């Protein structure tokens, strides 16, 4: 066995540990399928500002499983070995978070081109925003941080969606992809999340 061929490089072992090969293609396929099949679908949900129900695009919730899978991948680790490592996995972990949001953006843009849905374009922005929040909360909250993504969306639905017109700026999600303030907030949240991730990759859970 000693003279056997080296199977994989270090970064491939990292990828296998994070279970990327199984999950990232499945995630891309899932995002494409959901955005394509539900690009125009809305469900009535209770909104306090509207004093009743408002139609909420299903696409608003597409980022939740994407972000949950990202966090699950990041949690597949050897905590003690990675915390006391000479080689840091921080760069690879950060690149993974960027790649997942890039894939979600790419899939959203492709579906928008195919279906003409403007809401699909915002999927990438919403994914990056929610991923940023969740990554910021991971060190203090652990795996429970992933709940921040659906929690944010339900707060937006219950308290942010009016019966007519655009939602308030603080919601970030639910705006068009090109809206400047939500885009800036997304960039800030995502960069903050990445910097927290880079630092916490060295920390034992």
């Amino acid at each position, binding site marked *: 066995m*000693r003279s*056997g061929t*080296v199977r*994989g490089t*270090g970064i491939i072992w990292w990828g*296998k540990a994070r279970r990327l090969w199984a999950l990232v293609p499945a995630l891309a396929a899932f995002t494409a399928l959901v955005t394509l099949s539900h690009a125009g679908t809305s469900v009535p949900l209770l909104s306090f500002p509207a004093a009743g129900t408002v139609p909420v695009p299903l696409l608003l919730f597409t980022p939740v499983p994407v972000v949950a899978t990202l966090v699950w991948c990041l949690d597949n680790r*050897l*905590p003690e070995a990675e915390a006391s490592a000479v080689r840091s996995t921080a760069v690879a972990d950060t690149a993974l978070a960027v790649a997942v949001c890039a894939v979600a953006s790419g899939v959203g843009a492709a579906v928008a081109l195919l279906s003409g849905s403007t809401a699909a374009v915002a999927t990438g922005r919403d994914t990056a925003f929610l991923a940023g929040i969740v990554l910021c909360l991971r060190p203090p909250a652990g795996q429970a941080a992933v709940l921040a993504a659906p929690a944010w969306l339900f707060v937006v639905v219950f308290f942010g969606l009016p019966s007519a017109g655009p939602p308030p700026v603080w919601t970030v999600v639910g705006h068009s992809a090109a809206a400047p303030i939500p885009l800036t907030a997304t960039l800030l949240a995502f960069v903050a999340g990445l910097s927290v991730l880079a630092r916490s990759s060295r920390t*034992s859970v």
Partner: protein
Amino acid sequence: MTLELSACTFAYRRQPPVLRDFSYQLPNGLTVLLGPNGAGKSTLLRLAASVTRPRSGTVTYDGTPAASQAFRRAVALMPQTVTAMRGLTAREQVAYSGWLKGMSRRDAWEQAAEALDRVGLTEHAGTRTTKLSGGQLRRAGVAAALVHRAEVLLLDEPTAGMDPHQRRVFRDLLQQVTEAGVRVLLSTHDVSDLAEEADHVTVLRRGSLVYTGTTGGFFAHAPEDTAPGRRAEAAYSRLAGEDG
């Protein structure tokens, strides 16, 4: 060259300190770390391996701080709970551990085979770690600690779940490792199993060092009328305050 903790205080979030103003110097050879549950054994090992950082105080090896690469190369930890990575075989997981410790991928891959051979897991090298039994997984954890040829080995209850034959193999391995000049600090609840073979014994109680010294000095704490086969347990019970 020694691993040293100086005036270390450590507490988990919203908990009282597990170790307070704790100082310790790891002696040569095999040291067995004893203490009741919650005494701070695992915390001591995690601090000594630079897995966690003390709130105050320093951890050094040969004068180099715990955050340095030289320290991290020199010290290896087998944690109390060995994680089975679903996506990795035993050899890949051990090689990944070596790669994390700075080995080249080729060295890590080759040394992983050798480390698995030393713990008697060669035939399971290609088995996914999630398919290993509890005892096999602990042996894979030992292999991961051995893979990069550390100068200090910190083993957190390595013999838990091992059958008598595996324990004998493990004792032989410990002997080889210490004869090669590696310092070993090993925590266990199995007092009589390893204390007789250790060069030194350290006993913790509620985060404090109640004994550290030679094995002979440890046995001297047993009551004089203790049967020879019961000396380790009797000495431990007296030191750890479990004798009455």
